Structures are given as structure tokens and as C-alpha cells.
């Protein structure tokens, strides 16, 4: 096929009624500071892994809130855990524990 320099985007329609909100619920229960997130993206801007890849912790959070947990599983493994995101967060979200909690949630839901 000829490469026109653009491609048709994947269908991004999200059915919130059918998506899996278990990680979101678990996260809110065990690390409630996530509720303070305003989605500013400072965490993603400073991310060490983000300098090497398209890893995007803000996007991961969005996936979780939408219940698209399949994507979360793969993404979260790339975090190096350095904690810069937590230091720059203007809302004081306890981000390293957010990552740990997501890991545990994934483990629990299998």
C-alpha cells in the first residue's frame, strides 16, 4: 500500500458501561491521593522512561479511568520507579505508590 504519511486512526469509542473499572476502584481505595490529579501532565513531562519511549503515565491514568486495563498491564511495566513524577506533581499525588498499587491490582485481578 502507498504510504501517504498518515493512517486511519483506530476506533477509540469507549463503552464505559462495559469496561473494566476494577483497577480504578482498587486504586481509589488504596491510594486516594490519585483523586487529586488534575491531569496536567507534569509527571509525563519529567518521566525518565518517557525520555526513551512513548511511556506516558498520564495516559495510563486515563486508560485506568476508562477501564481499558489491557493497555495498562503492558504500559506500567516500563516504569523505572525513580520518583521524579512524584516530586514535580503540583497536587501531591503519591505517584510511586500509585504505580505499586496498580501493580498489585493487576496481580489480584489476574
Amino acid at each position, binding site marked *: 500500500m502507498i504510504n501517504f504519511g498518515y493512517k486511519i486512526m483506530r476506533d477509540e469509542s469507549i463503552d464505559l458501561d462495559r469496561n473494566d473499572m476494577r483497577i480504578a476502584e482498587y486504586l481509589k481505595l488504596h491510594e486516594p491521593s490519585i483523586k487529586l490529579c488534575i491531569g496536567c501532565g507534569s509527571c509525563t513531562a*519529567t518521566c525518565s*522512561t518517557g525520555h526513551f519511549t512513548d511511556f506516558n503515565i498520564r495516559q495510563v491514568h486515563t486508560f485506568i479511568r476508562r477501564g481499558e486495563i489491557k493497555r495498562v498491564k503492558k504500559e506500567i511495566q*516500563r516504569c523505572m*520507579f*525513580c*520518583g*521524579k513524577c512524584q516530586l514535580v506533581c503540583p497536587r*501531591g499525588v*503519591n505517584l510511586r505508590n500509585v504505580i505499586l498499587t496498580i501493580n*498489585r491490582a493487576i496481580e489480584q485481578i489476574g
Partner: protein
Amino acid sequence: MINFNLFVLPFFLGLIYVVIAIGKSWYQWIKALPAIDKVKFMAGIRHPRQVLSALKEVFLESLIHRRMWKRNPLLGYMHMSFALGWFLLIVLGNIESRFYSGVHLNAPYYPIFLKFFIHDKLVIFFEIFSVPGFFRFLMDFLLLFVLSGLVLAVIKRQKSRWFGMKRTTAYQLTDLVALTCLWLIFPMRLLAESFTAGYYGSGGGFMTQPLGNLLVRIMPLPDDLVAYAMWWGYSLALGIFFITLPFSRYMHIPTEVLLIFFRHFGIQPKKWYSSISDIEVQACSRCGVCIDVCQLSDAGIHDSQAVYFIRGVRDKYVPQVISRKCLVCGRCQEACPVGISTDSLRLIKRRELVSGQASDFSFLNTENNPSLQAEVVYFSGCMSHLTPTIIRAMKGIMDQAGISYLHLDEDRSVCCGRPLMIAGKDRQAHDLVEFNKNLIRSTRAKILVTSCPICYRVFKEEYNLPIRIQHHTQFILDLVKTGKIPLQGFFKKVAYHDPCDLGRGSGVYEAPRELISKIADLVPVSKDANNAMCCGGSLGIFEASQQQRNAMTAGALDILLQGQPDIIATGCPLCKKTFEKQSPVEVKDIAELVYEALPKPAYYSASGQSRPAVSFADELI
């Protein structure tokens, strides 16, 4: 007269039980040692010198409680009166009993209840210059010594602040039973001996005889029966104490002895939960010193201090939350009078409890790295990327000194791995460690300089690099000492904050202080060096809100600001970043201070290479 009475049975059975229980634990611990440590142990006990030095420490720590004395004389006295007093009561009581029985080996209960068995052999009341009289005086004196400690212990339970401790450990049921029995043993002994002495009108010492006479006069019940009941009570208190000992905190008494021997034989705690960890857990006396030094108290956290964590390990149940709720700053480890490696234990448990979720660092590709080489490699670390002034200062200093260096993580950094390790994810950290190791090796560096104590510690402990690893304070100090950079001091008061991983973690206390005192006025800080506070920004804690962290930071700042400094200096980008948010005075890294102290012309042209680059690595090494 037959030296036996039914009341000795609770004591005697308790004693048999406790000896068997302790013997069994000791045997199991030694048997469960890793093979290499078993060899060390067998070699150690055949080495009289090591055994003697261990015995010396047992005497100083388990009986005299030297470290407790250093911490607080009142606490030291309290512990010493119990341990040394009781020990001497047993030893001297045994010697004393030989005068009366005439044989060398008595039944174990005979010396303990001696005064009951020998009351008919004593006629004269006050004959201190005779041998039996002298012993009677000594035994009364020792009993008084122990009782004085008991009074202090009771007061400490109520008013721990009088002992310089903010709070004391909250107890479990078995501890409470054992504690009550322990506290009853010596008053019961006093009453039993006094009543007996009072009833027979002789046989007591300077304390028990007058007290006995008085008690007999005011006691309405038949005195011989009361005395007999007291002997029963004394025996029961001892017996119950012995039976609860293996399940209570008092197991620390026999365990600490073994731990001291292990240490003298060179047996160290492992990275996993081994028999040595088990001994450390049992050796915890739950004295509560760790609660007192723990900064989590500032943040209103009172359930996860080392003593509670260790108790959880001992009871085979540590909630995950408790294992994660710790700064891993190491203050409790420094303060622990038993010398338990509380931080390592915490990390061992984190490794066991953390979710096994794999990490995927396949995006790190060694082949993509430019094969640059330099003798001095500068690794600023993730955190320093958030404090660009530190990096600028370091570059300025190295340019000024004319050093050709390579900034390894100039535009992007791979984490050193410690943040993962501190969460218990050692396996996941392995990839990062290997990547960085290869990267550093490929530069053929002779000196690796880092601005971040977290990286510094992990480079030293985990990387096994055959090169010199320095924190930037050490490196700069070398530059100053070899005359590579001239310094112009300024008149400002500087308080130095020891970062946890640099000070307690890596033992670097002197280099930063020497550097600061070369350029400014170093003011003393009341809690410094190995007792320094944590800034509150620690990567070790996961279960703390921003507000709780802020409270800990405020506590640390209070201490630092006592000397009214103009500047707070530190050697860690994370500490700097944490303090900056709350400090009323400037917070600067030592590199920044040195950079400012460089002579002015160089200060302005520092961005370019002001002098030809020469190899200094050889000179510095």
C-alpha cells in the same frame, strides 16, 4: 532438714521448660545457618580470642547495657539494675548457698529460696564482718539495686517523657503477662524474705530484717502462713515468667547473647530471610528507642515503627501496608541498642511481599549508546535533573579545574535501580543495574562521580565496579586539596544536612563538612551525622501523604534552623528539592556553594572550557 518444699515446683518446672525452649531455639538457629556461616561458627567457637571478645561484649551490652547508658543514663541504669542485679543475685546466691549446704552442687531451687531453707541456721542478726553476714548484706543490697530499677520501670511506663522518651512501646497480651510476672518477682522475694526474717526474728539483712519486723507487727494474719504464701507467690511469679519468656519480648535476653556471638564470628545478615534475621527479630527487646527516634511520629504515624514491624515479623504476620510505611532513613538502626539491622529486615520483607509484576526495560538498548570515553565520568542521577543548578555548578567546577569529563546522563538518564530495590523489586532492578554497568564500563572511566547519594550508595553496594566511585562532595574536596580549584570563602552561616543515603547509608560524613568549612561558617546542628534527620522526601516510604511528608520536613527544618543559618547546605538533590518548598532560608547543594566560591572571572566564563583539558584521574587516584 530436707531442702525441698512443694512451692519450689512452679519455679523448678518453669526453669526446666525455659532451658529446654532456649536450647531448642539456639540449636535450630545454628542448624539453619547458611553453610558458609556454619563454617564460620564452628571456626569461631574454637577460637578463644573471638569467644573472649564476644563474652566481653555480652557483659558490656547484655548486663551493663553500655549503649543504653550512652543514650540516656537513667534508661541505662534501669536496664543495668535489672540485668546486672539479677545476674549477680543468681551468681552470689549460688556461692552463698554453698556455705549452708556444704556441697558444691545444689538443686537449682536451693539458692533461689535459700532464706526459706536456712532460717533455722541463722541466729545472729547483724554480723556483717562474718562471711555469712557479708553475703546477707550483699544479697539485700543487690535486691535493693534491682528494686530501684523496678521503681524506675514503673515510672517509665507512666511518664516516659521523664526518661527523655516521647513514647514507649504498646504491648501485647503475652508481653503484659510476662512483664507483670517480672515486675512481681522481686517485690515477692522481698516480702517472702522479710516475712520469714520477721517471723523467726533473724536471718534478714539490713533491709529485709527491719522490714520483716515491721510487717510482722502490723500483719493481723498468722505470720508463718503469710510468709509461706509469699514464697509460693515468688515461685509462681518466677515460674510463669519462665513459661511466658519464649513467647514474649523477654526472649531477647538469651537471643541477644547468641547474636553477639554471631557478630563476633563474622556472621552477617543476608539479603533474604535467614536464620540470622530470625535471631535479630527475636533479639529485639521492644525497648521503644526506635519509636522515639522515628520521624513518622511527626506525621502522626504510630503503627509501623521498627519495633512494631519486627513484632509483626515475629508473629508471622506483617501487613503489606506496614512494610511500606517506613522512610528507610536508618535512624532506628543507628539508635538500636541491640544493633538490629532494621532497614535490611524491612527490605527483606518488602521483597517477599511486593507484587511479582515483571518489568519490561527492553527499550534500553546498549547499542544505541555513543561509545564515548573519558577518565572522569559524571552521573548526575534522575533527581539532579530536577535541580539543574547542581548540574550547572558541577560542570562549572570541573571546567574550572580543567577536567575532561563525560556527562553520562546529560539529556536522559536511566535510573540507578535503587528506587526499585527500596520497594523490594530487586529482580526488576537487575536490568537497570546491568545496563548502567555496561554503559559505565564502556567509557573506560577511572572515576565515577555522582551528585545523587541514592545513586552513590547503589553504585558502591550493588554495581561491583572496579573503579573509584565518588560522591561529588568527595570529588570536589579532592580537587580543592590537589589545588585544582581555588576557593574564595564568604561570610555566611551554613547548616549542613546529612542526606540519609550519604551519611548513614554510605558513611560519608567528613568530606561535605570539610568542604563547607573551607568556604563558609559551618554552624553546628543538634542532630547531625548518624543522628541526622531525614528530609521527609525519602523514596523509601510509600504510604505517606504529601501532608505527612510536609510535617516530617518541617520537623527536620526546625532542627536545622536552630543555629539560625543563612543557608542550609546538603549533598542530595532530593533533600534540596524537598527542603526548598518549606525552608525560610536558601537551600543549596554543596556543589553550588563551591561554584559560587570560585574566583569571579572563572565564575562568568565557566560555561566554556577555560583551561586546556588534562588528565587528572591518575593524579587524583
